């Protein structure tokens, strides 16, 4: 063990550092101990992703075909829209994020996972909570607050389930092997500790001891933006900080940049909630503070982006081969784009045009999908083979998954941002009738359905491929599945 706190130790790949046989066995043992809980979380997440995809494509269709199923209450647009988002957030995002976080935590703490049953019980409860919540929303129990639509009994189930996961995570951290705490662990610790505080205070302030009037909306968006940044953002960034150095086999470029990035990220992004309500009925200082915080997130974005870029320097060609790297780098770049777009739509001059348009929806997709989901896909391509002891079966399916989701989400975001801007311009022109603004975005919304067909293909392909792995149909090979045949490169750059 390196006791000097040398950061370069952990993320090094298998190739460049000659790991001793002992460490190799140790890793295999750790991976084996995480197999069951992580796979349970992953499998559930992918099932919810398919649910979300189904409702997602239905919402896009119903926007320009409003007379579809007019007599069916639970298929009305205002019910399937929250089901789409909540299954994406709580079903897919949280479960996949927790799965990856468990694995990373075990690896980085260098300790085998203890009490896996606690985690499996947590996963079961979480599934139950999401299922009850989605059925509740479909049945008409929406609470009226975005991203918190789940009725109380479902929220309580989720919270109890989360406490199981959190307890486990802290126990794991407690029993970690002494040594340096890697930057990924900072992000994961932050995410693990922020989420319960965030979720509990939102629930208490909205439903148990409700605050008055517009404070409910302020709490709502404080919660939503913090969920996006502090929970999904932390897990996504932490994962990227692990995967990129690991795959290319060189240490993070600068540890100090990473530390600055972490603290400034947490400090500034946790204040951005009110950028969703610019010029709303609130004291001006709240909104100004959020806009200022949003602008200041440029600091963590620049440091994190620079750090990843410098780490990747001269290694970008590896994206040609490694599925993990390709997805992760896509996500890391999307994080930069997400933050820059966030700053732009927060500026007052821009907000007055786009703040009630579909552009804000596009921005949310950038954070939740183009950044977080793509990073998590990347981590799954890395982790799953290590858990099931098989390699991914078809490189062609991975490539199809990547391109379909990259084009799908790219198109979705582009259409919503551009369409939202056009919609906002006509919304703001009071000489135009209101319906003109809705008409102006309809072509873009039709286009979004095409984008969602691409995303549907990508998710079905991925679910199929994951199913093959789960059922033991992966390849038995000593080298990972590369996207393209290696051209004179030595193996190992998975």
């Amino acid at each position, binding site marked *: 063990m390196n006791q000097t706190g040398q950061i370069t130790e952990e993320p090094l790949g298998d190739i460049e550092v000659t790991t001793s046989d002992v460490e190799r066995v140790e890793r295999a043992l750790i991976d084996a101990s995480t197999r069951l809980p992580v796979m349970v979380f992953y499998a559930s997440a992918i099932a919810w992703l398919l649910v979300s995809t189904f409702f997602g494509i239905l919402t896009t269709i119903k926007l320009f075909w409003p007379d579809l199923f007019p007599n069916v209450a639970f298929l009305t647009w205002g019910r399937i829209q929250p089901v789409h988002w909540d299954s994406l957030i709580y079903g897919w995002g949280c479960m996949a994020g927790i799965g990856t976080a468990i694995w990373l935590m075990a690896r980085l703490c260098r300790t085998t996972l203890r009490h896996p049953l606690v985690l499996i019980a947590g996963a079961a409860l979480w599934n139950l909570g999401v299922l009850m919540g989605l059925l509740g929303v479909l049945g008409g129990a929406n609470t*009226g607050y975005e991203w918190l639509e789940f009725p109380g009994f479902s929220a309580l189930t989720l919270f109890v389930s989360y406490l199981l996961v959190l307890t486990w995570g802290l126990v794991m951290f407690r029993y970690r092997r002494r040594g340096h705490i890697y930057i990924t662990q900072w992000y994961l610790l932050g995410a693990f500790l*922020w989420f319960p505080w965030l979720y509990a205070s939102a629930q208490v302030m909205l439903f148990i001891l409700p605050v008055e009037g517009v*404070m*409910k909306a302020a709490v709502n968006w404080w919660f939503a933006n913090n969920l996006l940044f502090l929970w999904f953002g932390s897990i996504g960034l932490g994962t990227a900080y692990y995967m990129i150095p690991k795959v290319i086999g060189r240490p993070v470029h600068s540890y100090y940049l990473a530390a600055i990035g972490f603290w400034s990220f947490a400090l500034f992004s*946790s204040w951005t909630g009110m950028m969703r309500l610019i010029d709303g009925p609130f004291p001006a200082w709240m909104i100004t503070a959020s806009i200022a915080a949003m602008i200041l997130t440029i600091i963590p974005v620049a440091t994190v982006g620079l750090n990843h870029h410098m780490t990747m320097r001269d290694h970008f060609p590896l994206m040609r081969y490694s599925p993990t790297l390709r997805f992760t780098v896509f996500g890391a770049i999307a994080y930069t784009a997400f933050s820059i777009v966030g700053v732009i739509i927060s500026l007052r001059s821009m907000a007055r045009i786009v703040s009630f348009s579909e552009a804000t929806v596009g921005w949310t997709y950038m954070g939740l999908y183009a950044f977080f989901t793509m990073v998590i896909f990347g981590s799954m391509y890395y982790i799953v083979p290590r858990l099931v002891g098989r390699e991914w079966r078809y490189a062609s399916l991975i490539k199809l998954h990547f391109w379909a989701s990259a084009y799908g989400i790219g198109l979705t975001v582009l259409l919503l941002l551009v369409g939202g801007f056009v919609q906002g311009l006509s919304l703001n022109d009071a000489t135009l009738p209101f319906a003109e603004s809705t008409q102006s975005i309809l072509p873009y919304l039709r286009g979004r359905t095409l984008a969602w067909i691409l995303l549907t293909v990508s998710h079905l392909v991925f679910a199929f491929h994951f199913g093959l792995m789960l059922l033991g149909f992966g390849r038995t090979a000593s080298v990972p599945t590369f996207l393209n045949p290696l051209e004179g490169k030595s193996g190992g750059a998975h």
Partner: protein
Amino acid sequence: MKGLQSIFLGIFGIFAFSWVGMTLVPQLQIGSLNPQSDEEGTDVYPAPTSGMAVRGAQVYAENGCFYCHSQQVRPDYGGSDLERKWGDRRSAPRDYIFQPIVLLGKTRLGPDLANVGHRPALQEKAAAPATGAEPGASPTASTSVAANEAKAAPSGSPSPPIVSASPAASVAPPPATASAAASASPVPGAPATLPAAGSQPAVNVPTSAPAMVADTIALTSEGNPLPYTAAWHHRHLYDPRSIVPESNMPSYRFLYQKRRVGAVPSANSINFAGAHPNESDENWEIVPSYDAKCLVAYLMSLDQSHPLKEAKSALTVAAAPAKEAQK
């Protein structure tokens, strides 16, 4: 920085900073506002939402209306909300203190609804000359009395649980806003169904005129219900495109029952005025469910037209009619 303690402290400290700054301090500042009243303690605003409107807010939330409709009017420097006549002034925190669910919304695939309950009063002014001759348009004695009683009641306890009386009682809309009403219509297509209101001389009808009474359906010259009245809302919810052809709002047919006409046709049934051939079978009528009535009661309770000290607009409510009349 690298110690474990400082990491934990930092993680907690930063989040506590955000929690205090973005929720606790604002809560202390705007978390316990009281209704505003004048020196004599009368003219209290806002009034608690009550009765069917509370249930209506739940119906509004559970069917996800707030994903497309906002309920907040931005100030004049923050967009064209005031120019679109979605309100006389910007929304302020005090407007929402009694809202059972605060549904500010943040997307506008449909128009803003912060003042949708105020619009029928304006429409009534606009259309009164044209619809006065309609048989059903004159107020029935009972509804007039109910509305007047509600208006006379101490204003701390308005909003009787009657769909019709609530909006009329809680606001006394200024007279002679005819041109404002005509240009206020946020729905294209609707202006075509309106009479040429701007050119009509404004007639000062009683403010309790029950255009919004469900069973006394005021009609435009083309046979459609007057915009934003209860009858209009019901028909619009049932079949949005029968009123606004280019609308992409979902139809909420599941909130309505289609049933055989009994011995006496229901007074609440939706009036399609021949505009809906599929539903014009005389043996059948379409009646709103309790939830639909609550939803409409809620919509008609949405009204931020009362002046607020902290949210003065360029056009105060008193000045607005005068300015409009000069145009």
